[in-house]
Each structure stands twice: as structure tokens, then as C-alpha cells.
């Protein structure tokens, strides 16, 4: 039986990959088909060792408003970081606005070596305009040209992404491996990942911090006529078949919107951190404070916690009080910690048992007030329901009891 016939017969047993069922044609190699349409869209061609990549540049004035901010606001925000004292993961201190590359990619599938990146997009904020630059792979097998051009024109030590740490950049590294002999190598990269920032600040108000949702809820953006991102692979495969750039130009528009949103989102989050007035609600303010704490910027964290304690929302106020108390404890300012812990304990909220235990520790070890420590531990035991916690507290109580009886003997 010949191979073709056999393949037809076995078809049912050969596992299938989901793919649209349109008829196929032989692909015409290298030259870019329907180049006229690309040209009309303003695209340029880059060629290297008989491989090609298509480059599209789009410019925006600084006064262009994308969502709630203009790009001028964005530029100012980046400059404002220079005035900010201390550490912060988003701090652009030391960078000019044009140093940052807002970055997003489109791929043919989820992570894995066989998933191809067919579009790399960046945006930079220059003195007078914002420039979006997109690098498009006209067909697999042109990746040398794609990465050559992309790496030439991008400073990948200052990327701003949405989940780029775990998706975009590993994927770039993976595909780069295929052409690494012919293009510059990829050193370590610096990174602002706005996904993690968004999770921190918005997850208490949102079920999903997908970029489109964040745009809608926080950036005043609504996507109209946008190609959903998950259709991008199918559109790309269709482009490979037919060579008509129409659909791809839509995907590029989508990618461009994503990147512009990164500028707006960076601006928005930076403003939340930089000026207290911009914080719409007190929970967000507290999250900003916790972020300072996580980043090791204790000074800024304390200042922010102090503000949060004044909140009318009891939860926010108590959360802040407990965290500030722990700050003081670590700094060995025990006297300052006591009233905050008392406040937390008396609130009988999420942290009250924790606070009572902390009080017991401080009274026992720092102030040597065993009776007070015993009282606190007893109180904690009476209020806890978790059995694991209970046994720990009982252990503490036993020890305190021994100490007490020793004291009594004396």
C-alpha cells in the first residue's frame, strides 16, 4: 500500500491537532505576498541573509489621551520618580522616559519551544512623541531577521510588560535559542512587570486582573472593534495560507493597544504610589503601603501605615495598625508597638489573636511582666478555634505557668 493511501486509512488513529479546515495551497516562498497592502499600511521591509521581517512604526503626539492619562502625563510621571526617595519596584529613578521600552508579543500558542513569536511590539516615550515599533515575522523561518532587527533596536534592560517575567521574556529567550549563532546574545534583563503590580493593588476589587479588565475598571478604556488576543494564532495561520495582511493588521492594532495601555497603566500605578491624593480608596492606599513594606522601604511603609490607621474602614485601620506594630517590634521600638497591638486585639478582627500572642511575647521577654503575658495568652486561647494554634498557645501557657509559680515561691 502506498504511503498516501495508508495515511488516509489511518487518519482516524493519527491524533489530530485542532486546526481550521479550509483548503490549503502551496506556499510561495520568501518574497512577501500582497506587498502593496503592507505598503499602504506604512510597513517597511528588513532583510538579512535572505530572511525578512516587516516593521511597522506608528507615532502619537504627547497630548494624545489613551484612557485617563495623556502621554505627557506619562512622561511627567517617569520624571517624578527621580524625586521619590527610597526604593520601589516600579521606580524609574535614573532613567529618562525614552529609556523605557513598553513591550508585548503575540505567539502561535502557549509556552513551549514550538510556539512561535510572530509579533514583537515596543513603545517608547520620546521628547515630543510616542513611537510604537512592531516587528512582524512574515513566515516561520525568518527568525534570524526578526531577532536581528529587534535586538538592534531595543534596549531589553528596561522593559515594561504585563506578565513578561513568566511569559513574554522566557518565550523570547526560547525562540532566540534557535538563532543564537547569528544574532547578538541575550544578557539578563531589567524589568517592570505591571501584572504583579496590578495583582497587588487591584485584586481586592477584581476577580481577574487581565489587562482588558484592568483597562476597563481603572484606566477608563473600552476596547471597540478589537480582535480578541486568543484569535491571534488562527489569524496568523490564515495569513500564512493566504498572504492577505488584512487580519494581521488588526492583530497588530490589538498589540499596539496593549502596549499603549501599558504606558497608561504604568502611569496610573506610579501615581498611586507617588501621590496619596490619587488613591481612590483606602484599601488601595493600604495595599500601596504593604507594597513599600514588601520592597523593604520601611520608612515609606511606616508613613503610609500611619495614614491608613486613620481610615474609617475598620478592617483597613486594624490591618495597618498590626503591620505598623510589627514594624516597630522589628525595629525594637517595643513601647510604640504595645498600644497598636492592644488596638488590634481589642478590635477582635482578623489579627486579634496574633496580636494577643505578640503581646504575650513582648510582656514575657521584653517587659518581664509574666502576669500580663499570662493574661494575654489566656485571652488568645479563649478566642481561638484552630486546634494547631491552640496547642501552641497551651504550650506557651504551660511555660508561663511554671514561671509564675516560681515567682510565687520567691
Amino acid at each position, binding site marked *: 500500500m502506498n504511503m498516501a493511501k495508508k495515511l488516509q486509512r489511518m487518519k482516524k488513529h493519527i491524533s489530530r*491537532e485542532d486546526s481550521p479546515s479550509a483548503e490549503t495551497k502551496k506556499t510561495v516562498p520568501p518574497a512577501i505576498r500582497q506587498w502593496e497592502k503592507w505598503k499602504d499600511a506604512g510597513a517597511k521591509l528588513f532583510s538579512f541573509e535572505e530572511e525578512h521581517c516587516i516593521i511597522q512604526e506608528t507615532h502619537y503626539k504627547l497630548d494624545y489621551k489613551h484612557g485617563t492619562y495623556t502621554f505627557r502625563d506619562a512622561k511627567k510621571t517617569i520624571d517624578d520618580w527621580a524625586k521619590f526617595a527610597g526604593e520601589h519596584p516600579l521606580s524609574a529613578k535614573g532613567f529618562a522616559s525614552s529609556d523605557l521600552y513598553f513591550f508585548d508579543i503575540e505567539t502561535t500558542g502557549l509556552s513551549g519551544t514550538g510556539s*512561535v513569536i510572530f509579533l514583537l511590539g515596543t513603545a517608547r516615550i520620546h521628547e515630543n512623541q510616542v513611537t510604537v515599533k512592531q516587528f512582524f515575522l512574515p513566515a516561520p523561518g525568518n527568525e534570524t531577521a526578526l531577532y536581528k532587527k529587534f535586538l538592534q533596536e531595543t534596549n531589553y534592560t528596561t522593559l515594561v510588560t504585563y506578565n513578561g517575567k513568566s511569559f513574554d521574556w522566557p518565550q523570547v529567550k526560547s525562540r532566540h535559542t534557535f538563532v543564537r549563532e547569528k544574532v547578538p546574545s541575550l544578557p539578563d534583563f531589567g524589568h517592570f512587570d505591571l501584572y504583579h503590580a496590578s495583582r497587588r493593588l487591584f485584586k481586592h476589587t477584581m476577580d481577574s486582573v487581565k489587562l482588558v479588565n484592568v483597562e476597563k475598571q481603572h484606566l477608563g478604556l473600552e476596547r471597540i472593534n478589537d480582535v480578541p488576543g486568543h484569535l491571534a494564532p488562527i489569524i496568523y495561520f490564515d495569513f500564512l495560507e493566504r498572504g492577505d495582511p488584512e487580519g494581521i493588521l488588526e492583530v497588530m492594532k490589538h498589540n499596539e493597544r496593549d502596549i499603549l495601555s501599558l504606558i497608561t497603566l504604568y502611569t496610573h500605578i506610579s501615581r498611586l504610589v507617588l501621590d496619596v491624593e490619587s488613591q481612590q480608596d483606602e484599601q488601595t492606599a493600604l495595599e500601596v503601603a504593604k507594597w513599600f513594606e514588601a520592597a523593604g522601604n520601611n520608612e515609606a511603609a511606616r508613613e503610609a501605615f500611619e495614614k491608613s490607621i486613620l481610615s474609617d474602614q475598620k478592617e483597613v485601620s486594624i490591618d495597618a495598625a498590626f503591620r505598623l506594630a510589627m514594624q516597630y517590634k522589628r525595629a525594637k521600638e517595643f513601647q510604640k508597638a504595645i498600644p497598636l497591638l492592644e488596638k488590634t486585639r481589642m478590635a477582635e478582627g482578623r489579627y486579634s489573636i496574633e496580636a494577643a500572642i505578640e503581646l504575650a511575647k513582648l510582656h514575657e521577654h521584653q517587659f518581664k511582666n509574666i502576669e500580663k503575658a499570662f493574661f494575654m495568652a489566656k485571652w488568645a486561647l479563649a478566642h481561638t478555634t484552630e486546634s494547631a494554634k491552640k496547642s501552641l498557645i497551651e504550650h506557651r501557657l504551660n511555660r508561663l505557668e511554671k514561671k509564675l509559680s516560681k515567682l510565687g515561691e520567691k
Partner: protein
Amino acid sequence: MWKKTLSEIVSELRGNENVIHWHELNPVEAKTCPVPEIVDERLRSALEARRVRELYTHQHSAFKAVRKKESIVAVTPTASGKTLCYNLPVLQAIAEDPTSRALYIFPTKALAQDQKSELNDIISEMGIDIKSFTYDGDTAPAIRQKVRKAGHIVITNPDMLHSAILPNHTKWVGLFENLKYVVIDELHTYRGVFGSHVANVIRRLKRICAFYGSQPIFICTSATIANPKELAEQLTGEPIRLIDNNGAPRGRKHFVFYNPPVVNEPLNIRRSATVEVNKLAREFLKNKIQTIIFARSRVRMEIILSHIQELVKNDLGPKTIRGYRGGYLPKERRAIEKGLRNGEIIGVVSTNALELGVDIGQLQVCVMTGYPGSVASTWQQAGRAGRRHGEAVIIMVASSTPIDQYIVQNPEYFFERTPESARINPENLIILVDHLKCAAYELPFGAHEPFGPIEVEDILDYLREERVLHYNNGKYHWSSQSFPAANISLRSATQENVVIVDQSDVANVKIIGEMDRLSAMTLLHDEAIYLHEGVQFQVEKLDWEHKKAYVREVDVEYYTDANLAVQLKVLEIDKTIDREKAAIHYGDVTVNILPTIFKKIKMTTFENIGSGPISLPEEEIHTSAFWLEIKDEEPEKSLEHVLMGIANVLHHVVPIHTMCDRSDIHVVSQMKAAHTGLPTIFLYDHYPGGIGLAEHVFKRFDEVKKAAQELIKKCPCQEGCPSCVGMGIEKINLKKKSIKLLDQF
């Protein structure tokens, strides 16, 4: 209580009238060579600390050959120090150049775990910073990155290589750039469908190595089979040097054939092998002699286990006799292996799962319930008993099947025969297409790039038309959103396993095991009795759609046995040999398989005490078949029995000649074949696309025919019995007619 020693039981056994053959293997002295001069001092002293002062001849030859950059296969019996055949050259290479990397491939996770602890012992004695890690489904995500970056020796299994390492090769650049050695242990297990898959995985591995500029040497080890060199060359695509000068010592071994007594003279029915095995095993176990009992199926294994536990419960604690088979959870198996090594477990009843090199130490006695199906597999199981010094006993208890009877009555056949060949067919179209997809996913596929011995461009074009690949500039690129390795399982035709859920305790529902889909059809259907560690469970519901079987513990007097209905259509005849009154064909067929009913069989008497229907969807496969056709339009009525009889015999004889499992081939006889209306016996590969077994039988039919005729002739029965052609119903001279009919082919 006074206990008998092994030699006392052995001399009692000599007088047993059911022992029909006694074969003694004399002790063999060790043959050794000095450790080669060039071996690193630290490695040398680590070996000395393990009391290795000299190398066995085969270890020495392996080391020399690998140093000359030759790929090898070392054929070694159980407990002959085979691991040193690869650990020595690999550790030496890393000691010389710390950038060197090695990849160890074991057929199962359990073997990989064993190997890691053994390897790490040597390494810590060497005092060199060599990192060896296992990389499998159990590896914690947190340390995966460390394994990728820093592992000198990465220990894995073919499934993991296929689905996790190769498709993510860009995360393993360090390994692939510096890969010096690929170790394939238990080479003989890579046969049939599994082996055919693995050969393709190795092709993919070599492509990726070539991309990163490395050209690893392959070091394989194998149990004794007829064609280790051929198999290794087929699997690795490299020229291979065979190392078979085994230098390990061996103690005295008694190999005993035991035939249960005839209980029904005219029908030639013998007492059940299971019953005899229980008795024999009990004798050893109650004298605290460490014994392994092999059973041919999971059900049989569980039945024997429960019987023996019952028999010795007054002599030994319940935890000292354990069951062992695939489908037990890994933790359970690790505990059993450990118990055997340290002697806490006296007896283990196992399926062929313990044929593999899982480290359980060396036991004193091995009892096989029936002929394991191949010469190679018999020696493997026998190898479980026998220490380097001291006596060991191996008892094979024959069942009534034709082949068992043939083997025990013709001992020279077994002892003089070279073991079987292991066969793979990496060019099976379905398997090949699967792996070409994975390969193209991993690296774009060049239009003229080789992938094994056959031209694959047709297949690449087919995949392009299916829009799975995109052709550009001389290369085929992956162009689908999916991840092809995820849909491809190396172990069987069917992808998903059925998970077994124990809901005896409603508050504590737990998963107790799993089973492949085809086996589940006959073992886990509604109302089936499923045995697990000697405990009976009844299947309350088989949820076929979600691949879950819900079971509940029961205590009943029976087990269940399912029947399959099979339909067969010839699609295409590839080859034909014409005889005067008959013809032999080879070609492609469609088979439809449908489980129909199950029977309840009483445990003590094996009588049928009831039955029930099974309602599961039909499975359809296209496969290769071999068939015998009789050119007789108006056959005698008795022919039907003759055909069934020959089919029965072939189903027993063919697995011996092709070294496959009995379940890998199916034999069906038909009075009127659908395509010709002629009386026909079909024999087909039970795997979509075929794995070369039917073709092998077609090529060597003369040999198969002769063996079948011999078996019928030598069977002591008069008119046919279940041990040969089956029951002769009336006086139709079934045996003679069968032999005569076979002569026509």
C-alpha cells in the same frame, strides 16, 4: 518451632512425583580484570570503599569500548553489576571534565529512583561535586530549574523525555550542548509498541543534540535476548558493540519443572497450577525462606496472594507476604521493595512487574505460576532467585495450556533454545506520524532531513495539507496552537488511564490505582470483581466518559472473567503464498472489538456460577494481519472444530516465536470469512497500524507450523484437550485432522 533449611526442602522435592525435570546449574567462578590505570583516584577509592577492587570482565570491556567512543550494549544477567558498565565511564568522564553531561533513561520511575540513590552513594564517596537528579513527574517545580542548569547526570524515563524535556529543549541548553553519554538501561523492555515509540523519541533526542552540536555515545544494558545488538541499533540508530563476556560469579541453582497431577484421565485435566503453587510456596514461606511467586495476570496474582496469606497466617504476620504489580501506588511499591531488601517481607506475589531491575535484593526461591510466555522472560524471573554464593531454587509449575505442557514435557526445548528476539517497528505509520509532529514542533524539519531509514517527506506533506505544518524556505515549521506531545502516550494505543476510586468509606473516598483503557474494558466493567493487594472490590460504576471506576470493598466467593466479541474485515492483501488447497496471506484488516458478557467464576472450584452483560462502546482498530485460508467451498462440518483448535494452538505458539505478550496478538477462526466466504484463521497485531508481529509470522510460518504440529503430536491426550487443540466433541479425530490441515499450508 523447628524450621527446615532450604537444602532439606530441596531434597524432599527431589522425591516429589510431580517433578518431571530437574536441571542443575553449577556454580560459576568470577572472572575479573584489574581496574584500568586511567580511572581517577577518587573514583577508584570510592569503588574500593564498596569492595570493588577488580572489575568483572564485562564491566572492563564496557569501559574500554566506551573510552574508544563506541556505543555499546552490555548483556548481563540479574545481579551481575551491570550498573558499573555505565556508571564507571560516565563518572570517569565527569571527573576528567566537569562540563560533561549524561542522560540516564530508565523504563520506569521506580528504577530511576533506585539508580539515583545508588549513584549518589558512589558520588559522595568520591568526594567530587557531581550532581545527579531524577527528573520525572514527581520532581518539585522548585528544583526543576536547578536540575536543568546544574545536573551532571539527569535520570529520567522515556515518557518524561518525550513530553517534558525534548519539547522544552531551550531550557536544557546546558545539558544538550555537553551531552556525552546517553544511558539506556533495561533495553530489552523497549519492544513492541513501547519500543517503537521510544526509538522515535531517541531520533528526536539525537536531532536536538545535533542542533546543539553534541554527539552522545549510547551505553545500553539488556537482559538476555536473542538480538540485543540489533535492537540497540534499531533503537539508537547507531552502530553498537555487543559486550556479553559476563564475568560475574553465580551460586548453584536448581531449576525444577513441576507438572500438577492429572485429575481427570480421559480429558487430561490437571490440578490447577494455582493450587499447587500455593502449596509449594507455603512450604518455603513457613520455614521463613524468602520466596518470590510470579503470576501471569493481575487477577491471578491477587488470587494467589489472598490464598497464601490465608495459608501462612498462623506462621507469619500478615505484612510479611505482599503483592506487587503495576497499578499499585508508587509509595506502596517503594515500601514493599524496601521490605524485601531488608528481609522484613518474606514472600512477594508479583506480576511480571518485578521482572525489571527494581532492586529487591536476591531471594532464595522463585516459583512461577505457569510458563511466563518467553524464554527471555523466564530467565529474567528465574534471576530473582540466586545469590552470588549459596543455593537457589526455581520452580516452574505448569498450567494446562498447550504451551506450558509443551515446555515441561520438552525441557530441552527451553534449556537449549536461545532466548527470543525483541522486535520493534519504529516505522509504524501512526507512531511515526506522531513523532514527526513532535520533532517538527521541537525544531523546524528540513525537507530532506532523515528521520530513521525511510523517506518521510510524504508524511510531512500530508501534515502540511492537514495544516499542522507550514512549509517555507526548505523547512517544515510547526503551525498549530497545540502541544503535540500532550496527545501522545508511549505506553499504549489508548491515551487515558482509568482511575480506580475506592468509595467503601464514604467519608474517605480515595484513589487506589489505575489501569489502561483496553484492560479496563475487561477488568473494570460494572460488577467486575477487582482485586487489589488481596482485597476484593466490586466495581459499582465504570464511568467510561470520565475514565473513572468506582469500587467498593466486598467479600465474595468468586472472581469475574470477561468475553470479547471480535469482527474482522480485510482491507488489503499485501503478500500471498499460494498452496494447492490453501493460501497464506499478509495484509491490512479492520477489527471491531466489543466486550459482551462477563462470567462469575467460583474461586475454589473454578466453576461458572453466573454471568452478566457488559455495555461499553465498541473499539475499532486498523492493523496488520496474517491469515490462513482454505480453498474449500464446501467444507466438512468438523472443520469448524479443527480451525478453532489450530487457532488455539497458534495463539500459544506464536508469542514464543515473536517474543510478544499473548495479549499483543489475537487469533480468530471463521468458517466463512467476510471477504471470500472461505474458512480462514486470522492472526492480527492488537495495536492500531500493527507492530510487525503478523508480518514476522508470515515470513517464518514454516517454523511456526512445525512447532504447532509438534505441540499437538506430543500432547499426551487422546482426542484433543484444552492443552492443545481443545476438546474433541465427537469422535472426529481432531488431533490428526489438525496436523493434516496444517500440512496443507
